[in-house]
Structures are given as C-alpha cells and as structure tokens.
C-alpha cells in the first residue's frame, strides 16, 4: 500500500523567509531563513525539516530585499516626547510612556536599545532604574522594542567636559565603588558575577564615566566583575589614562570625539586607543553620525582606523520623532528642534540629537560608501558583541533571537545612499509592515 500523508497539519508558528539577501559576515548571500514565532528564535532549518518534519506555516518572498538583524541603539535618551530621566509624580505614567515608546520605536527598525540616563541625582536613579532593566525575558513580540539594560551616562564625569549635563549633579568617587552604590542604588548592582549584561540582579548594562575623575579608575574592575560594561566618556583623559582604563576592563568609548580631548599629534587623547592599545583588544566606540556632532570625514577616519569596533549611536533626545519646535529640555533648559538638529534655545550648543538611527546609518553609508554588510554591522553585530550578546542579538545565525528587518536599499546617482525599513520582525513575529498602514502595534 503506498504511503499516504495527511494534508492537514497543525500550525507550527514557523515562517520561512525566502528570496532575500541575507547579511552574512562581509557578504550578502541569497538564502532562506526559518523563524519561529513560538520560541522567538531563528531555527536550524535543516534539522527542523528532517527531524521534526516541520513545514513552515507561511512562506514569504522577500523579492531580493535585504534581510538583516534588528538594530541596536546603545545610547538613546528618549523619543516621541518620552524622556527616560523625567520622573513624573505617578510612576504608572512612566511605565505607560515606556510601553508606548517601545511600540513606536520598533517601527523605526530599532528592536533593542539601552535606555540612557544622563547625569542625575541619586533619587532619579533609585526611582527609574527598576523600570529600565532588560525587558526581553517574557519574549513578548507585541511589546515592541526591548531594553537590554540601562546605560548610566554619568554622574562620574569630568566637569569640564559635561556637555549639557548639569554641573550640580556631577561628582567624584573618593570612596570608590561604594560611592557608585550610593548614587545608583545598591540593589541595582547584581550580586552575582556575570559575563552577561542584565543578569538577574542588575538593571544596569553600561556605565559611562571619566577615568581621570578621582576614584573612578579603581572601580573599573569591580564594575566589570558585575557584568556591567565600562565606557570612557565625557573625559579629559590622556591617551595614557585611557589605555590604563582599558587595561582595567573598559571596553567602550562613549560618543568618540564629542566631550573629550581632540587628537593632537603628540597627545592623541582617547582617540589614540583606536591606533594601538597595549596588551588588550582595542575597545568598541560609539559614533554619532547625525551630520551635526561630527564632520563626515571624521567619521570616515575613525571607521578606517578600527572598523571592528565601530558602533553607530543616536544619543537621541526625547524630541526625536516629534515635529520641529521648542520643547522643555533637561534641568529647566529649553531646547529647539530643527530636523535632526537640537540646540539650547538661543544658543548654538548642541543639546543632543534628534536623528533616528536609520538616518545616522544612511549618513554613514553615504559618506563612506562602505559595503552594505559593513554598514549594517555597525548597528547590529558589533553592538551585540560589545554587550556580550553575540549569537543572541544582532545575528542571523540559527538560535539567535529572530529580531529581523527587511530593508530596501537605495543607491542614488548623487552618491546618496539610504535604507528604508519595509518590515520588522520581533521574536519571530511580524510587528511592522510599511506597506500596510493599519498593521502594527
């Protein structure tokens, strides 16, 4: 009797994405990707096919578009009017605002981020850090973007390189790590040793501080031991001081060139570590490529010096995504937004940025004409590596989280290049489709 197979099969929650160009290392390759909306992972398709006889519920033809991991923004202060460091009277409002932000943010292609807090008083950290820790545990695609842990930018930074941080809240760490515990809250440091960010104990993933500020450099080993990244930023450090911080465990530089000493041919400053770091790997470094913070050629030079560490960030303020105009800023300031440019009202001081990550990405691509995989890794695999999440986020390998973007790549004749986000998948579920206005979170 010939074998008969029942045509009715239970739904598996598996989607097969075919016909796209996948980012794989330095190349774009044609291939298929199988994702599960049940587990939220990218599947080992051959194993699932032979071992479990799984057929995808849905086959989606990407028609040659680019398939890449979801973007990760590691410096991001707020958006759509919501500011991580503004504490309302009612913390329920804060939570609701956070949820709304996550749902809107995911449409821009940013599927994971580090909510960033510029220098604040201790009360602020105590109030908000518990809401800003890693939010991906439930693996709920409908929440939208996911926090990978908080980024505390300050208050242990240099008073002469404070940018728009309020001088009143800056401080030193004469008692070492204990001072940090006081400011951020003891309970906000994980008690376990961990390589991974956001272990069960700590909502903080990264701390930016100036290594030359008294007491800070000594804290670096303890911070690393707790699974928290130490980033050098807002600093007057020399090349030697920066190198020493790296020796002690610093692995990141916050918005390179901004709020630090410039490159001098005999005093290369923090930038010098991109050339050579004694004994350790060269660190990762964030770059704001909104076209305002840095000259395009500066970005290109940094990228050429150390492409493996190059991470694009927005340092976006809450005004991103809002229409142009004047808004209340931090610490009683008034800010004026004009497109991506954000200044203190009445002056030229840059108050942060209002560019989205994809705008920054498109700028970088247009300036550098690097290959698509090289451009895209700066917001996917490189930040994932920096955070210790390689193979989990920012990757199209099997078993990684299925946070994916379908991008349209446009290369204009004038040298302008740009990506457009067509679809967004979070944990294997489609959460945004540009061609369908009504679909979404």
């Amino acid at each position: 009797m010939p074998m008969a197979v029942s045509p009715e099969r239970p739904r598996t929650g598996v989607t097969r994405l075919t016909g796209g160009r996948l980012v794989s290392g330095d190349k774009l390759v044609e291939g298929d990707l199988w994702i599960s909306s049940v587990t939220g992972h990218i599947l080992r398709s051959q194993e699932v096919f032979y071992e479990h006889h799984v057929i995808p519920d849905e086959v989606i033809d990407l028609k040659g578009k680019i398939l890449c991991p979801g973007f990760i923004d590691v410096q991001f202060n707020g958006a759509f009017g919501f500011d991580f460091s503004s504490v309302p009277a009612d913390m329920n409002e804060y939570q609701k605002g956070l949820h709304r932000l996550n749902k809107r943010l995911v449409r821009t292609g940013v599927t994971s981020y580090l909510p960033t807090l510029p220098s604040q008083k201790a009360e602020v950290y105590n109030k908000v850090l518990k809401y800003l820790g890693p939010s991906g545990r439930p693996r709920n695609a409908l929440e939208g973007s996911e926090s990978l842990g908080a980024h505390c930018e300050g208050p242990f930074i240099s008073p002469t390189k404070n940018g728009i941080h309020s001088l009143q809240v800056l401080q030193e760490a004469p008692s070492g790590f204990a001072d940090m515990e006081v400011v951020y809250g003891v309970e906000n440091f994980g008690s376990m040793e961990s390589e991974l960010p956001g272990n069960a104990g700590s909502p903080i993933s990264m701390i930016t501080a100036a290594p030359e500020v008294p007491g800070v450099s000594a804290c670096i080993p303890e911070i690393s031991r707790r699974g928290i990244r130490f980033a050098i930023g807002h600093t007057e450090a020399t090349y030697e001081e920066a190198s020493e911080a790296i020796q002690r465990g610093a692995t990141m530089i916050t918005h390179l060139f901004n709020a630090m000493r410039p490159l001098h041919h005999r005093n290369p400053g923090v930038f010098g570590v991109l050339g050579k770091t004694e004994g350790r790997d060269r660190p990762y470094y964030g770059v704001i490529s909104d076209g305002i913070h840095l000259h395009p050629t500066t970005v290109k030079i940094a990228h050429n010096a150390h492409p493996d560490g190059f991470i694009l960030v927005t340092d976006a303020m809450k005004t991103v995504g809002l229409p142009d105009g004047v808004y209340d800023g931090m610490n009683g300031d008034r800010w004026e937004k004009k497109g991506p440019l954000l200044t203190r009202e009445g002056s030229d001081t840059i108050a942060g940025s209002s560019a989205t990550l994809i705008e920054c990405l498109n700028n970088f691509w247009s300036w550098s004409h690097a290959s698509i995989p090289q451009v895209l890794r700066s917001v996917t695999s490189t930040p994932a590596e920096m955070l210790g999440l390689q193979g989990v986020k920012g990757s199209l390998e099997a078993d990684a989280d299925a946070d994916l973007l379908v991008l349209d790549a446009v290369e204009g004749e004038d040298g302008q290049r740009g990506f457009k986000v067509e679809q967004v998948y979070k944990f294997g579920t489609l959460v945004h489709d540009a061609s369908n206005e009504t679909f979404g979170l």
Partner: protein
Amino acid sequence: MMLRLSIQLCSCMRWDQQIVPGGAVRLVIREDKHTAARYIADYIIERIKSFAPGPGKPFVLGLPTGSSPEGVYKNLVAAHKKGEISFRDVVTFNMDEYVGIPREHPESYHSFMYQNFFSHVDVDPANINILNGNAEDLEEECIAYEEKIKRAGGIELFLGGIGPDGHIAFNEPGSSLRSRTRVKTLAYDTIIANSRFFGNDLSKVPKMALTVGVETVMDAREVVVIITGPHKALALQKCIEGGVNHMWTLSSLQWHPHAMIVVDEDATLELQVKTVKVSLCSQASPTAFAHLAQYFKSIEQVASSQGFGQALASEEFVLRKRDSVLEKLDSPKIPTAKTFLAPTKPGLSGQITPDLIPDSMHERVEGQPAKGLGLDGLETKELPLSGMHHRVDSAAA
C-alpha cells in the same frame, strides 16, 4: 552545429509499441551536461505529470547525489518555482548516505539534498527517505529501508549517476549484481575522490556508507542514468558495449526492461556506436558526417513526433492491458462454423451391429448331467452373457 542524437541499441522496439514494456536501453546524447540535465529534468516532470500522483497514490522517486545530478536538481527547482510542477505527492528514496558523520554536516547527503533540492521545493518531509548513517544498528536500518520501499509500492523511477569505475550508488566494482541495501566500506579511490569535500584531509573522510544495492535499483520500474564528462566515457563504454559484469556494476542496466542513459557528447568518446564514432571536431569526411547526421536526425524526429514516445506507461495501465488479454485467453472458444470441413452427403449414419443373443450349450447339445467326474460341488453355472457395449461405452472414454 548542434547534433542531437538518439540511438536504439536494440532494434526490437518499434515506435508504435510505446505502451508495451520491455524494450531497449535508450541512449540519449545531448550536447553538454547542461542540456543533458535539462532533458532529464523535463523527462522526470513529464513522467510525474502523466502519472498524476495523488494523496493515496504517490510517485515514488529514487534520487542520487553528486555533481552530475546537481544540474538536474537546478532545473527541477526552477520549474517548480515557475509553478510547472509540484512535488507534494512525491515520495523520495535516496541512494546512499555516509556512516558516522552528523546528519547536519555540510558534506552529508542529507545536507546535499536539503541545499540542492528539498529546501526549494514542496516535498513533504514526511515523504522523504534517506538512509540514516548514525543508526544504532546499521543492518537493521538497511533492512528497514528495503521494507519501506516495498511498502511505498516500489520505486517508479530511479535516477542515478555513475562513478568513473562504473559503479552505481556505492556499489563499487565487485559488488554482487543481486545486492540489496547494505553497509559498504568505501574503496580507497572513492575516499580519495571525496577528500576534496573534506578539506583534503583523508582522516576526516567517512570510510563507510549505507547504500542501496544493484538489484534495489534494478527493481525500479524505470531507471534513468546521467553520465556526463570525458572521465566517465570509459565507464559508459564498459557498461553498455561490454557484457553484464560485476566490475562495472551499472552494466546490469542491460537486464532492465526499461532503462535510459542520458549522456553528453564528451561521455561518448569511448563508444563505438554500432558503430559510429561521432566526433565533435569535423574530422570525419563531411559527406559521411552529413549522411549520419541525417540518419540520426530522422530517428530523433520520429521520436519527438511521438512526444516522449518511449515514456513508460503507468503500471496500472499495463496491468489492465494484460488482464484483458488474459481474460480473452481464458474465455471458452465459440467454435467457428467450419463449413469448409462439412461433408457433402447428408444423412449417412453408421449401422449398429445387432447384439448376439447367447444361448447355453446344453440347449443345443443333448447332454447328461456330469457325474462321476469328481466335479461335485463344482457346477458350472451359466455366466450371463451380455454384449460388450453394455459394459464398456466407448463414447464415454
């Protein structure tokens, strides 16, 4: 000039007898491996379509791996993507698999089939059969495989390639022509040939494999073999011009009632071709060449006018024909009026000899009762005499 040739090696097959199984080994020559692969892919698609498989009636396809069939798979995938063919009701049996490497190893035959075929078409994974080289009991795995083929109804079409030593699947020279699915240790030459896929590191190349046997392949209703490239030319020559021989195991194809070999011109370099040596360079005299070209073109034309005139009709069609023939043989013959044998004088009938009425001797002859002869008690009684025809009826003999 592109020369497309089709040669009948056995002349007992007539073009109009396309439905009767038991014909020739068809040799189809195409210009290069690409056109050869396309021919086979088109043939397979045509066969599946005319078989019209359904959920209870799958088309059982035997499949190979290797560089020769890769082109066939590419063409099948392309046709599927264009919507020309669905494989939803196709059951597949692969020929072989290495022993001892993980199923997901990039060089396993599972991976080859997934990357080249299964991931691009709609074969149901539950309908796929590939030998498991990591089974706990390899012999049980082989026995089970044969049984699965049987339960699927036997293989309708087995596609295969050939090694440079004339082997089919892993049936290396010396394999029994009656062999079935079993574990084989690979020949040293095969291991060397395979090492290019394992980083040229001999220690990484599998030394054993599970393979279908020669007879397993020959049991299929139809066998189609692709042979391309000059390095296969000697094997082709040995297998179709030599005798059936276990040193060139594909030669067992000569015993198959319905086989087809599709080759490119390079693979024919050793053939005598009954014998026509067709050369790509026009070294033969132009006129002789032209005559030959005409001859074979006309064969090809007749063939193509019949469609795939040699396509094997489905088993049920053939069985129905056979059944109707048997029926006719079994039904009693209505005697035909043989008027040419009828006698000219009517009414003549044989006389019946009158019965002899017996009487006993003593009524004819005066006699004394017998006495004093010591015959007391031994009276002879008269035996009742009756005619022979009461005892024996010659008509009932």
